[in-house]
């Protein structure tokens, strides 16, 4: 219906509205990139207008310059080739800026974008071959199969076609293996790394995609206006793009369209109205935009789209349990093989020695329980083993290879998977998707394949694997619920399913039984026994003694960062040092 309206729009609307819709389309394309970057990925850029400018200026320069260096001249053959050139330039610039800023904590990126948004703008205005502040004129119109798109009505179809294609591809991307990794960036960095996701790469991907959308928008803009000058690429416009995304609903693909439409129309109207009200000319609409933004953040932080979406009933997607061929499994080490070996591991935080000369060993086909009073250093040891923190000294080996100093992603790839003491699920995502993140490293389809949904075969297998693990831990009925809506104990079980879907040889569980009821604990113990019998090694940190003693093959006891006892459950229970640690000694 909406599509039909879009299609006949230019045939019935007056010129003015077609132009307005063209602008909305161009702006929405940039805002769409920001939805991916800011709303989904939690990164922010004020400098998207500068990327738009790069796209526009590249094509402007290549199509109008009198004499081009030989290397560049073949780009000038057609505006379609200058699009490629513009994308290359933009991606190169964005790549460098991304390398510089993406590694730093959250606020450096936006601050960096403020600065280079500023400096690119001044550069456009001061470089003589780009026409300085007056700009460049005489940019040729686009042509398609020999048909020149001179009229706004013709360009309209191209703009909206590209925009809808971009929306489609963004949605596809988000609903894929890479997309789950991207959605985990905001608030799930450590978890994603522990599941084998290269978060730095995911950040770079969305930064580049957002820059590319901006460059395409700039290219279209240059051929629509047929001239370019620096003004539309200033920092203020960059800020406006961000406002469009945030006001429309930064977490939602369609929010970009709503935001771009709203801001563009509002700007048109206010630019007309306010100067008359105030009796002076100037960009007074920014006052309203500023106040509107503050209001949105105070009252409706998710923007307008979710409010609209609630008003309109939308079809829920079918909820069939995914099926697919099983994924390839890694080779199981035979039972009894040493999986994990920690030797004399020391971890100091400043003067505090959290782990002192800790050694332990986990073999395939056994459950080793690590117990100790609060603050004994169990979680620190977990972090050393899984690569979240490097040890100060000592060795950690996995399957005979040193892994201390490796990042957690690398360790996860070798077949170690973990759960977290403080549950790290993405609460808004479904249980199925959360568990599928665990299978991330078992897939290989890239961003391009995901964008056009060319990886559905692999995706089905990944989801089927996730579904199998959910079934295995007994949470099938919650598969499509938001993970945050489950009880805490169940969320811990979801974490186990997620760890299992990475097909680990060694499973590290940090207090899995906390918050479970008696029967649930029994079920969990049965599951862990079954996994052990299949040859998996399990390292278990737990406080519930009944649970531990009935389940573990061996027990290691820690206190004050040191190992005080090790042995069979019965032996450890009689060990005087252990009894003193737990019950307190007689002084």
């Amino acid at each position, binding site marked *: 219906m909406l599509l039909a309206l879009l299609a006949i729009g230019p045939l019935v609307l007056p010129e003015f509205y077609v132009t307005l819709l063209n602008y909305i389309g161009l702006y929405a394309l940039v805002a769409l990139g920001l939805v991916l970057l800011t709303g989904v990925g939690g990164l922010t850029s004020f400098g998207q207008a500068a990327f738009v400018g790069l796209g526009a200026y590249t094509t402007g320069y290549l199509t109008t310059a009198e004499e081009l260096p030989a290397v560049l001249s073949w780009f000038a053959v057609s505006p379609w080739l200058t699009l490629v050139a513009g994308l290359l330039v933009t991606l190169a610039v964005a790549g460098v800026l991304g390398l510089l800023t993406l590694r*730093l904590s959250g606020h450096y990126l936006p*601050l960096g974008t403020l600065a280079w948004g500023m400096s690119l703008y001044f550069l456009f205005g001061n470089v003589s071959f780009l026409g300085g502040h007056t700009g460049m004129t005489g940019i040729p119109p686009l042509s398609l199969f020999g048909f020149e798109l001179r009229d706004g009505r013709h360009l309209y179809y191209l703009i909206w076609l590209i925009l809808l294609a971009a929306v489609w591809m963004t949605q596809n991307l988000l609903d894929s293996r890479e997309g789950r990794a991207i959605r985990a960036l905001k608030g799930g*960095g450590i978890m994603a790394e522990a599941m084998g996701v290269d978060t730095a790469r995911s950040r770079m991907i969305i930064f580049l995609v957002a820059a590319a959308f901006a460059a395409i928008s700039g290219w279209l803009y240059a051929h629509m206006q047929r001239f370019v000058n620096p003004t539309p690429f200033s920092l203020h416009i960059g800020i406006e793009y961000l406002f469009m995304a945030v006001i429309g609903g930064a977490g939602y693909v369609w929010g970009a369209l709503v935001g771009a439409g709203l801001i563009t129309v509002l700007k048109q109207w206010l630019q007309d109205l306010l100067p008359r009200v105030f009796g*002076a000319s100037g960009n007074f609409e920014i006052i309203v935009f500023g106040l509107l933004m503050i209001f949105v953040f105070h009252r409706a932080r998710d923007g307008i789209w979710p409010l609209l979406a609630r008003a309109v009933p939308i079809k829920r997607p079918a909820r069939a349990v995914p099926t697919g061929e099983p994924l390839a499994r890694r080779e199981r080490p035979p039972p009894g093989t040493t999986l994990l070996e920690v030797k004399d591991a020391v971890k100091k935080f400043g003067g505090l020695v959290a782990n002192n000369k800790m050694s332990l060993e986990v073999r395939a086909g056994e459950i080793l329980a690590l117990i100790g009073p609060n603050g004994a250093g169990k979680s620190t040891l977990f972090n050393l083993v899984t690569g979240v923190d490097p040890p100060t000294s000592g060795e950690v080996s996995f399957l005979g290879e040193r892994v201390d100093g490796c990042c957690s992603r690398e360790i996860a790839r070798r077949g170690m998977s973990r759960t977290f003491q403080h549950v790290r699920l993405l609460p808004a995502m479904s249980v199925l998707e959360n568990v599928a993140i665990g299978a991330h490293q078992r897939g290989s389809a890239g961003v391009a394949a995901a964008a056009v949904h060319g990886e559905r075969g692999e995706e089905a297998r990944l989801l089927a694997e996730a579904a199998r693990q959910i079934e295995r831990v007994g949470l099938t009925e919650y598969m499509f619920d938001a993970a945050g809506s489950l009880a805490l104990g169940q969320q811990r079980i979801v974490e186990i399913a997620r760890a299992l879907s990475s097909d680990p040889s060694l499973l590290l569980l940090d207090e899995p039984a906390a918050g479970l009821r008696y029967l649930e604990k029994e079920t969990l113990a049965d599951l862990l026994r079954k996994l052990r019998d299949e040859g998996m090694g399990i390292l278990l940190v737990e406080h519930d003694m009944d649970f531990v003693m009935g389940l573990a093959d061996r027990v290691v006891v820690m206190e004050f960062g040191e190992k005080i006892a090790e042995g069979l459950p019965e032996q450890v229970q009689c060990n005087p040092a252990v009894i003193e640690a737990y019950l307190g000694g007689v002084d």
Partner: protein
Amino acid sequence: MDLQIALLLAQDGVVNGAIYALLALALVLVFAVTRVIFIPQGEFVAFGALTLASFQTAKVPGTLWLLIGMGAVISIIELAAASRRRGGRRRLTLALGWNLAYPAVLAAIVLLAKPGQWPLAVQVVLAMALVVPLGPMIYRLVYQPLASASVLVLLIVSVAVHLALVGLGLLFFGAEGSRTPAFSEASFSLGDVTVTGQTLWVIGASLLLIVGLYIFFERSLWGKALRATAINRVGAQLMGISTTQAGKLCFLLAAAIGAMSGILVAPITTIYYDTGFLVGLKGFVAAIVGGMISYPLAAAGAILVGLLESFSSFWASAFKEVIVFTMIIPVLLWRSMTTRHVEEEEE
């Protein structure tokens, strides 16, 4: 370039650098205590200078209306909040005093008396009295309800506040720039170079402010409370330090530093309604040099920015801004090499 020009440029650079240093200090202060990256810092520069200029042209500065308006809104909010809970009478009286009575008194002074004929020093005090309270008011209206939001949200909100204030600046003061008379007409010659009295004023006042801030943070209870809040918000709260009060105090200091900077430079450069943004951003470049944490590094960065700017305006004046803002890239590179990858984000 000969020595004389070099000295002249250096003098220019140090004067601007001193201003950037002040702004950088304010930015670091606000960020450390409230986690707000205070983009509107620059608007206080423009508001301070232009309010003073309004007095001299015998106009009523628009900042007065802003003060009255924001005061009224806050009063309504506080009254509404007070009607919902018992007690807190004293707090309400205090809030109404500052947000209704204070603006009213100032309005009476500005509208009835003729501050245009008063001596410059009194005009400066009056301009400060008008502009500085806007800082804590903005905190109360905009940031206090968002105190627990992420740095990113606070940053975007800051940009929104900046836009609104620039728009209001245009409305209040028009598009034309203004200059104010110098604090002192004296000038001295050191060898070949002439040093104006205003230059000395800027540098002297900056140094004085920096020393003052140092004493405030080292010696006074409030200063220590701010430092405690900067180091650990929750810990400070448990020690009975109100983070809301700390936030307001920070914004007060930031507004005062901003307005004072504007009043100091207005005799040297023409100030437009939107000048503040560029000046503030340069303060930012300096603050980023200090990693948004270190005061001395930020101050050193500010002098560097000032010198870079004045020398590049001589060699490549068209690219002055490009050079200054591109400087941030090697700085970020250096910081990304030295900072360990921060993996977990807040929220």
